[in-house]
């Protein structure tokens, strides 16, 4: 009989001895624990809700630690009671003591404890009544499997970009979230909570970054085959730096060598490069593609080799992607397109 097939009526001691309280079993368990610890320590802070870099995220992290602390206290008390009940005095308690224990432990303590948690939780709810104008409005449209991003400039014009979000530090940013196909969810864990992007509807989310740095936002609602590859870098700048960045993004692209190859392959059918090719609003805007950090919405770091791989076999890198393969292009054309895109700073 296989070791793991233990009859249900086997005495526990015998079962434990059989299934694993062996030297190798213990070593396995211990190394698994140790590995988990290493793995957790390696958690990337750029996508961690417990390393807050924004107003909301800080409050959420506080709430998390507060609830964890309360939970730990409750756990200790109950475990203590259980241990006491097993190992403690064998003589029966008086009926009066039992009544009081049930009343205080089962009614008073949970009521006060839960009420305290509710008060803290409610206090953290955003104050919807307070409708001061945000410092920045950003329109985010989620599509399978990327993000269309447009910044509202002060004169009301939109500056369109894609798959990389830049925010000024210490300013409130309001996101108008929608989707064109299925339900997605917009989440930048270090900056705040998540919010669904729903087709035919605009949801509003406000975030206030408090620490400069580069973070990672993700889609937090399963949306199809490449849901896990639908991410975006989030760069929080000092305010002046952000304005300079936005001004630069507002500029049309400078003509770069390789443009003919880009046109000839028909890239412009789906991608806008402002100032060069403006008809195709189907896929991500590539006007300043060369200044971005990633390819394919956070899928690969932007390097020459990765970009070439992406043009040859996007489907292998990101299953379900709408971008077709351009493996049939002559090599020199594809290389010219790669150079052209990298030049779009």
């Amino acid at each position, binding site marked *: 009989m296989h070791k793991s097939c233990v009859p249900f009526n086997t005495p526990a001691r015998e079962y434990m001895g059989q299934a694993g309280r062996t030297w190798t079993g213990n070593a396995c368990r211990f190394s698994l624990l140790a590995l988990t610890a290493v793995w957790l320590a390696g958690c990337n802070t750029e996508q961690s809700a417990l390393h807050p870099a924004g107003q909301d995220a800080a409050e959420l992290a506080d709430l998390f630690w507060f609830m964890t602390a309360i939970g730990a206290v409750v756990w200790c008390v109950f475990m203590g009671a259980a241990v006491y009940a097993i190992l403690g005095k064998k003589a029966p308690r008086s009926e009066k003591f039992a009544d009081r224990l049930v009343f205080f432990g089962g009614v008073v303590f949970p009521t006060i404890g839960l009420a305290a948690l509710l008060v803290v939780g409610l206090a953290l709810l955003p104050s919807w009544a307070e409708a001061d104008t945000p410092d920045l409005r950003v329109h985010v449209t989620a599509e399978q499997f990327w993000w269309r991003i447009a910044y509202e400039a002060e004169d009301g014009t939109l500056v369109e970009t894609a798959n990389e979000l830049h925010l000024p530090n210490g300013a409130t940013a309001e996101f108008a979230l929608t989707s*064109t196909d299925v339900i997605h969810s917009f989440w930048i864990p270090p900056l705040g909570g998540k919010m669904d992007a729903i087709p035919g509807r605009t949801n509003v989310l406000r975030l206030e970054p408090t620490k400069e740095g580069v973070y990672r936002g993700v889609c937090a609602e399963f949306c199809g085959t490449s849901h896990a590859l639908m991410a975006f870098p989030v760069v929080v700048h000092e305010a002046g730096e952000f304005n300079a960045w936005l001004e630069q993004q507002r500029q049309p692209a400078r003509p770069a060598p390789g443009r*003919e190859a880009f*046109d*000839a*392959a*028909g890239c*412009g*059918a*789906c991608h806008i490069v402002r100032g060069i090719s403006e*008809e*195709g*609003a*189907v896929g991500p805007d590539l006007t300043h593609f060369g200044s971005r950090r990633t390819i394919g919405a956070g899928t690969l770091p932007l390097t020459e080799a990765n970009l070439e791989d992406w043009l040859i076999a996007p489907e292998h890198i990101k299953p379900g992607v*709408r*971008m*077709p*393969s351009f493996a*049939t292009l002559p090599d020199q054309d594809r290389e010219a397109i790669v150079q052209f895109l990298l030049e779009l700073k």
Partner: protein
Amino acid sequence: MIDFRPYLAGAGLALFGLAWVPLSGVLPRTAEPPQPAVLDAYYNLAAQQSITLRSLFTEVPALDEAGMKERAAGHYEMVCADCHGSPLRPPQQFSRNLSPTPPLLVERMAQWHPPARIFATLKHGISRTAMPGWPSQLRDDEVWDMVAFLQTLPDLNANSYASLIREDATGSCESCHGVEGQGGIPGTPRLDIQTPDYLAAALKAFRNGSRQSGTMMAAARQLSDGEINQLAEHYGRNVAQRGTGTPAEAAAIAQNGIPERDIPACASCHNNPARPGYPKLDGQDPAYLLGQLKLFKEHREERGGPNAHIMAEVVRFLEEDEMKALAEWYGR
């Protein structure tokens, strides 16, 4: 524990019995002398019934549309007539030595019906006979063309058949694509507007079986690389053509696409003189364009050709009335 040994022994004996008959060589499977008439009748009955069963739920399209029988006639003359004969000439002698003997369709077609059964026969072929299935299982439209042609076959005389297959044309391309490659039969593409690059790539894709068309696969498989390049140079004249430009709604799609529905502009790729590998559309036959758009939508990259996977994404959200409008707009 059940004792399986008697069962295994029984199964072994049964297998030996089954294997003995073919292994011994006594089973007659020769074409000469032909199989006895009673076996012919037996297999024929099975074939008839299998065809009927497969045709039960077939939806029959309109069979009187312009160009259907003309498109099939050339293929019939090139591929089918050797075995089944035509109003112009009897079948080749070798086909009379096949067992079973292929029927003479000029005489027999009048008794065969309904269209769904003819369709099933053409598409799937008949095993244990020389009748193959259609070379591409994705091109039901071509099979229906052939059904339309076969239904008119009994009424054709030598003259009307000759004019249908354009017997006067020299070379098999011209009989369907026109003497100068300018087209003429609705649904058959004109070649003169294309570049040699495009035509050569298309012929090679038909020849290696990646681009799907029973007719063109049969035609291209006879060609060598040299002949393909020669034909591509000859017909790919890159003649500038203007479409008629109606209806107007198609112009918007062709030039700007419908970005909010993820439909890119046709002109981004198809009017581009720098990209000789993409086909030209201005002046192309509208029925052919519509047929190809439908193939891209239905079969995606399986339609075949070097860039079919790109078109598959392009037509994904295109509705049929938009396809029709675009085909007309680009058409002559």
